[in-house]
């Protein structure tokens, strides 16, 4: 499956709290129940920490959880 762009905002000016390095969009696997989704999320270039912005956690991801729990 292709990698989905899921964020509207640009997070390239954010830095990792642990390393102080910038975040860059990178492909990430999200797992819900036993479904996998390939999405693009901001990740720390040094330690690989993945940022899941609030807009995503409270928006699309919450919708997805509800959809999958129905099935």
């Amino acid at each position, binding site marked *: 499956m292709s990698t*989905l762009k899921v964020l509207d905002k640009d997070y390239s000016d954010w830095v990792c709290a642990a390393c102080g390095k910038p975040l860059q969009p990178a492909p990430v696997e999200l797992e819900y129940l036993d479904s996998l989704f390939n999405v693009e999320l901001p990740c720390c270039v040094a330690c690989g920490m993945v940022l899941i912005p609030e807009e995503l956690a409270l928006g699309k991801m919450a919708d997805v959880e509800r*959809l999958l729990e*129905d099935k």
Partner: protein
Amino acid sequence: MPTCPHTAPATDSAAGPLWARPAMRAVSDGIFRPGGLALTDRMAELAGLAPGWTVLDVGCGTGASVMRLRQRFGACAVGMDALFSQVRPQEDRNATAAPLPLVIGTAEHPPFRRGAFRMILCECVLSLLPDTRAALATLHALLAPGGILGITDLYLRTGPGSPNGAASPSSLPHGSCLGWRADRRAIAEHLHHTGFTLRRFEDHSKQLGELAARLVLAGESPCLLSPAGACGDSTGPDTGTPGYFLLLADRRTA
């Protein structure tokens, strides 16, 4: 609810068919139906599809399943679709490869002789047709004796109100892709009346949920994906729970 645009009839909806939207293109890799090629493989394997079988894919779209059946199973597979615009892109993308045998035609008036096929696939297509029963009768005629029909489509996992209370297939709004609005029992009866014997029925509703989830991640409104097409009452007792099934049926000769 994702539409299944494989042979989506021309729609006059202002929003346009779901498959034409960028989100649907982004999530489906060109396979616009739940389960994608994995369910195509599953049907072929369950049917025991052997090299050389003549197979017709009704509503072939861009021919992804036809190519799969030819390459992976050695089938003599051909595709038919009502919409020329859906048939063409595969040929454009594979200009150097031999063109796939895809033809324009409808399930009501297929351009093939009787008994021409060993197996027929209807992937997320049948419930979109205006007269499901007439289409099944035509497919019956296209199958050779001993032939197998493979269907994937939407259905009611639980009927409205009660488990067996599914509405009659003919009450399905045309082109809604809400499946037959029939439950498993009603689908089996439908097949029986058109000369088929149900051999296997599997629920693959998880695939429907995953496709819907990808659409939401790509930016579609979850409201569009709910069974009733509206927010709030998506799993209410009056609409039934939508699901996705795979079935194999044997052509009866009697």
